[in-house]
């Protein structure tokens, strides 16, 4: 039990936050959200008592910050263990270990979901970028009118919802723990106070920055994914193409080139043996792509966390 019991909701939340200091910022956000729901409901259900009076009893009902923190820590460990995809079995032969690890990426579902995420980022990037640029421009333009204030609030609120949805998407595709509850805007306050708080909150700005960054990053990720996929698949399927050509299944108007860049082209292998070599090459390219996807997604998840969750958490 802490020596100085919290006298207000904000104080309690601060103590809970420091009790969870070493935990994942996403977990902290969820825990604070739950505590706030309970505490505000508890205070609201005792209208004739002061916040300090209600808070006095909290340690014996809701639990002291340390106890609550311990409960979240325990449950998180259990849930994480239950949801974790089992690690691939350790390779028995050390000689082939490196090769197996390199091609083992084909068995890793995370690599495929990461690749899927990379393909999706072009679409989400365009949506986020358009949303932020339109929202900021209209907020600035409407600022002189009364409607500018609710518009700005709604814009930031939407940005937070997008940040939460993006977090869920990232957790689903890369496994990085992201918040499951949004940031709570705090107790009801006047519009001007709300706007002031939003403008002062670093996370508001880092969230907008992230949403803007998603366009260039999305273009980059999408390009890498599509280029890797097309080249890798074309090489890997070269024997099929050769066979199909032999059987006359490929219409003559379709180019038989493996690669065609600005007029320079590399012809398709004509013999089946050459095509088999191409296939090995293609499989290596695909493996490299999946490794790259896994790495990029992991790096991107870290970036997302540092911009969407950590500031102010």
């Amino acid at each position, binding site marked *: 039990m802490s020596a100085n019991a919290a006298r207000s909701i904000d104080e309690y939340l601060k103590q809970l936050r420091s009790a969870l200091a070493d935990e994942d910022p996403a977990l902290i956000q969820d825990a604070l959200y*739950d505590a706030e*729901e309970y505490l505000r*409901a508890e205070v609201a259900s005792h209208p004739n008592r002061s916040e300090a009076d209600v808070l006095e009893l909290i340690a*014996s009902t*809701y639990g*002291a910050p340390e106890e*609550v923190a311990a409960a979240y820590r325990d449950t998180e460990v259990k*849930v994480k263990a*239950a949801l974790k995809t089992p690690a691939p079995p350790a390779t028995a032969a050390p000689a082939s270990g490196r090769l197996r690890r390199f091609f083992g990426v084909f068995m890793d579902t995370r690599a495929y979901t990461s690749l899927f995420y990379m393909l999706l980022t072009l679409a989400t990037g365009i949506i986020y970028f358009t949303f932020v640029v339109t929202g900021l421009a209209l907020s600035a333009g409407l600022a002189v009118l009364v409607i500018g204030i609710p518009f700005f609030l709604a814009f930031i609120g939407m940005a937070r919802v997008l940040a939460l949805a993006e977090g869920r998407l990232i957790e689903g595709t890369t496994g990085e723990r992201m918040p499951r509850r949004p940031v709570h805007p705090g*107790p009801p306050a006047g519009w001007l106070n709300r706007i002031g708080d939003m403008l002062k909150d670093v996370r508001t700005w880092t969230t907008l920055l992230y949403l803007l960054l998603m366009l260039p990053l999305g273009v980059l990720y999408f390009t890498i994914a599509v280029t890797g996929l097309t080249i890798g698949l074309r090489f890997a399927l070269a024997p099929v193409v050769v066979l199909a050509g032999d059987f006359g299944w490929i219409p003559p108007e379709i180019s038989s080139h493996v690669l065609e860049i600005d007029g320079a082209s590399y012809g398709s292998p004509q013999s089946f043996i050459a095509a088999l070599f191409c296939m090995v090459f293609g499989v290596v390219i695909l493996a490299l792509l999946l490794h790259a996807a896994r790495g990029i997604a992991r790096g991107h998840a870290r970036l997302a966390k540092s911009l969407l969750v950590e500031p102010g958490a």
Partner: protein
Amino acid sequence: MDDSQARKFQKDLNAGLVALVLLAVLERSTEDLYGYEIAKRLQRANEGEALFKEGTIYPVLRALAAAGLLTSRVVPSYAGPARRYYRITDEGRAMLGQWSQIWRQTRGFVDRFIEGTDS
């Protein structure tokens, strides 16, 4: 006598029981409940010293929902953050039946030794 031992024992016992109790509460309820309401129902049911702190039910609720035993929906609230209302799923009901069975067996087994009816 130091009661930290007693508290640790209670905590170990609660590890699985909280989930069972939460499923039972939601199964008996005719309407969807949110965290605070569930906490208050538990508080009313146990007089005197609480068996577990209400703050510990939230992470368990979330874990149950993640396992598909509960569904939830979010309803905005004036008093604070939007509330998440939970409802038990068919899968949750099946699990509750199974867990209740295990609980009855366990209770009977433990009682046979503690109450000494077996000797």
